[in-house]
């Protein structure tokens, strides 16, 4: 068993603190991979790696951020490779398409905030919309809005400047809101009362959604 003394107490603390992050890590893993089996693998591999590099963790610094960083790296390096087909469609193309639509529609929700449409949504609607965000945006939204890391912590986890965190967060939230708004309209949770939409835009986004659903 463990020897007595300072080193083994440190080990014990590390283990306990790390174990406390399990549910958090698993939840995020689910949002990243979209599948329980893959999420389990990802979390398990994260802990294996964390133990292997345990000596690199500076006690007193943020273990939670350290573990998330490890998991995100593992995800982008290993798990992403296997989902290559899916990721191409989640790449720059989708980003550009969604942002163009957003710009054209001049999403008025922010100018006329009487409709808190998002409070009419169900869990699965929101989860699905998040899981369809392009990865760069999804990561920042998950880490800030769901896991409540600070901008600085996210910058460290993703190894990007704080300015990039802020801009991805801003765009990610806009995309999310836009996607949820479209969805709420389609499902009839809300009716379009304000800006008249161009036919093209609706078709574009709906057609795109349909294409995605059929997996092309």
């Amino acid at each position: 068993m463990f020897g007595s003394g300072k080193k083994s107490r440190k080990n014990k603390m590390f283990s306990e603190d790390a174990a406390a992050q399990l549910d958090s890590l698993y939840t995020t893993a689910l949002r990243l991979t979209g599948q329980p089996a893959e999420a389990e693998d990802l979390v398990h591999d994260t802990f294996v790696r964390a133990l292997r590099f345990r000596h690199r963790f500076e006690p007193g610094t943020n273990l939670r951020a350290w573990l998330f960083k490890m998991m995100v790296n593992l995800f982008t390096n290993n798990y992403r490779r296997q989902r290559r087909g899916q990721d191409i469609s989640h790449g720059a193309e989708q980003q550009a398409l969604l942002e163009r639509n957003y710009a054209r529609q001049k999403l008025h929700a922010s100018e006329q905030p009487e409709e808190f449409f998002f409070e009419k949504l169900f869990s699965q609607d929101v989860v699905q919309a998040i899981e369809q965000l392009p990865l760069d945006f999804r990561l920042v939204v998950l880490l800030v809005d769901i896991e409540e890391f600070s901008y600085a912590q996210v910058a460290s986890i993703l190894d990007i400047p704080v300015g990039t965190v802020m801009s991805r967060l801003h765009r990610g939230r806009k995309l999310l809101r836009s996607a949820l708004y479209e969805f709420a309209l389609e499902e009839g949770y809300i009716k379009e009362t304000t800006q008249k939409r161009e036919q093209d835009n609706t078709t574009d986004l709906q057609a795109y959604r349909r294409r995605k659903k059929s997996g092309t």
Partner: protein
Amino acid sequence: MDCAEVDRFLQVFVDGELDEQDRQLVEQHLAGCQSCRARSEYQRRFIAAVKARVPRHSAPEHLREQVRQLLVSEKRPFLPRRLLWGSLPAAAALALVVTFTWTVTSAFSPVIDEAVQQHSRQPRVELAANDPAAVENWFRRKVDFHVALPSFGSGKLSLVGARLSRLAKRQAALVRYASGPERYSLFVFADGGQQLPGSVCQRIHSLRVCLTEQRGYTVLMWRSRGLVYSFVGDATPGRMMKLLASASREY
């Protein structure tokens, strides 16, 4: 601050990331500006609504148990989970007996280092061949041990060629393989009885195969009939173990 400025800072303000001075300035403006206040409230409610609708999951019990075991164990596993839980194909058909030995060894080993170095440099072959027998024959008078090669099934790994090499001051045979864009190097040298480096070992057929990862490369090592083999590749440990498992037993 005017509305335009507040709008620029709005997200950062709502996220509580503004420094004290700027935060106060924004608050002052919001106190007197209904429309900015409404926008700020909208942002806040949107983020809160999203957070409330993303469920918190508990890790499933079996995962919790596995992690608990990882954390209490003194010896640390290095294999990714997929490999541990039987990712080898047709394992049942091959009646694979898988035993795990946790060995904590020094990561530094000249054989591994040099093998990885050579593999990464992809030196030119001296003999281009796709037939193992031709390669074995070619080595016959060039090294003082008999080079016996595993025969990876056709369609899995193609033999590219061979050359002479040295590993930790020993003569070695280097045989190169490819599978699409993937590159592999197999080093063969005489067995001097040294302990095989490798942090985790696993049984494949009758061989005890030890795994190390270095600089992103996977290295598998085993001994058989007086020879030591070092199989280096860019692929994951799981894939390389599979390749080895599918190779013929007759060597």
